[in-house]
């Protein structure tokens, strides 16, 4: 079973909620946490662990054997990314940064072995053992690479392979298709937001996406004391979702965040919010 933490806007506290919820959910499930914010993965930093067990994510790239190529231009014609350009006589050239690794060129090439396989490393996935009783999977896109999707897919697969009772996914900000990929197959989405007009705007987008995907959604209102709660309540009502937890702006949480000491393990009263949230989640997903 899978549940997800997401929230539209960056910096609303997605990762803070994901790691604290993961620790609290350990009471109820044998679980794995997957950090699928592959452009800016931070769960390991908040959990204060060094990434372990690195595995590269390779992507196919065509390599032309010019002694066999018949210059038919088919590969260039079908490439949706325009990553293959051809000279006047039909000689193909690859622009590596545009290639998405889909293998379309290899599929249409009429000459066996005129297109050979080369691989490029797009990023890495990690399987880190934490001291909290659950493993962490992290996807990390290499700097300079543009495509997050293959890393999201690879990290999610690695997490699924562990076959834990519960997979808790922490997504990137926004609502693009890499976020949908991370959310896919979730039984529950915890949407984290803050009560500012910016938070509200982005919350609506993630609620729209969850609606399209048919995922049950709960709202966690972070820094609830900072702004206008009525706005969030209104949006929640409109979309028929409930606000399940409120976390007031808290110096304790900021310090736990900075020090890499999860607040849920502390004696602070904020720890209770996460324990209660975990209980609700456990009751819901069963």
């Amino acid at each position: 079973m899978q549940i997800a933490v997401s929230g539209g806007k960056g910096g609303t506290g997605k990762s803070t909620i994901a790691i604290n919820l993961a620790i609290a959910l350990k009471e109820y499930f044998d679980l794995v946490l997957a950090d699928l914010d592959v452009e800016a993965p931070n769960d390991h930093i908040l959990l204060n662990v060094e990434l372990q067990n690195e595995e590269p994510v390779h992507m196919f790239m065509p390599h032309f054997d010019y002694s066999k190529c018949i210059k038919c231009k088919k590969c260039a014609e079908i490439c949706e990314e325009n990553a293959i350009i051809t000279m006047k006589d039909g000689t193909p050239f690859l622009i590596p940064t545009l290639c998405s690794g889909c293998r379309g060129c290899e599929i249409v090439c009429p000459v066996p072995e005129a297109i050979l396989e080369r691989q490029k490393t797009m990023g890495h996935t990690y399987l880190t053992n934490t001291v909290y009783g659950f493993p962490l999977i992290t996807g990390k896109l290499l700097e300079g690479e543009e495509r997050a999707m293959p890393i999201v897919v690879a990290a999610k697969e690695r997490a699924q392979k562990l076959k834990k009772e519960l997979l808790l996914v922490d997504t990137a900000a926004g609502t693009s298709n890499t976020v949908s990929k991370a959310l896919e197959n979730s039984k529950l989405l915890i949407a984290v937001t803050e009560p500012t007009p910016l938070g509200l705007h982005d919350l609506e987008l993630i609620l729209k996406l969850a609606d399209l995907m048919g995922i049950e959604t709960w709202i966690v209102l972070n820094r609830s004391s900072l702004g206008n709660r009525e706005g969030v309540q209104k949006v929640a009502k409109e979309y028929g979702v409930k606000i399940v937890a409120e976390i007031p702006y808290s110096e304790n949480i900021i310090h736990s965040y900075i020090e890499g000491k999860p607040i849920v393990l502390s004696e602070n009263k904020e720890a209770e919010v996460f324990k209660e949230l975990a209980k609700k989640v456990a009751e819901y997903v069963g």
Partner: protein
Amino acid sequence: MQIAIASGKGGVGKSSVTASLVYLLKDTYKLIAIDADADAPNLDLLFNVEKWEEEKELTGAKIAKINTETCIQCGICAERCPYDCINFIDGDYVVNELTCEGCGVCRLVCPVKGVITLEEVRSGIIRKTTTKYNFPLISAQLDVGRPNSGKLVTEEKEWAKKIMKEQNLEHMIVDSAAGIGCQVIASLGGADAVILIAEPTPASLSDVKRVYKVVQHFREPAYLIINKADLNPGFRRLHEFAEEEDIPIIGEIPYDRAVPKSMTMLQPVNEAFPQSKASKALKEIAKIVEEEILR
């Protein structure tokens, strides 16, 4: 001149710092602002934009469609989809429109001609307005579940260049998205200077280092602003990073509740609370930006 503002990590204050800098520079310089965070555009909210003067639909994104009438259900498309976006649901192979990247491999491997087509879909919208402060703003909004491509940001910049020519504007300020992916690369491409924003936390440090690697790839001069600087006074690793990489720190902004408060008022903090601690720091930064970058 083109200035990009980036951070790697979301929520460190990119948009609020951008809004204040633009607000402080608008009277001296003729500029245009671009919100390149198409996933979660917020600059228009901070400038209290109520209506858009012009909108363009963004097409170009492609999604595969399977004609269930003629499909022979061999399942090869689902097997070969590189991103696992085709599912067998209620007796039919169906493309998941919210995760499809539009690569077209399914169409190529399908043994029956015409069953799978690639259809152009709307990926979002680009909008232009003149703010109440009299400078133009261009913003993009991606439709939910669409691939976020750098093409969208490139198109925003093209539009901006046209307007700059028409209105004789000097500077383009680009508020880039969080992360390091294609939309960030498109935001940084062609910039004359990059202003990095980070907060003194290990997570923000990690992310700003990652985006700086992309900046280095473009060989663009970079500057650093430390936001919420007093939240973690013992944390010197941002300063160490700046020193090691020879990145000038052009300002430190203290944590100030006036900032979120100004957000709810839909105003840059320098407009809403000009005497606040954050506003004073931002004013100093604007001065340095004028002297060091825009000179």
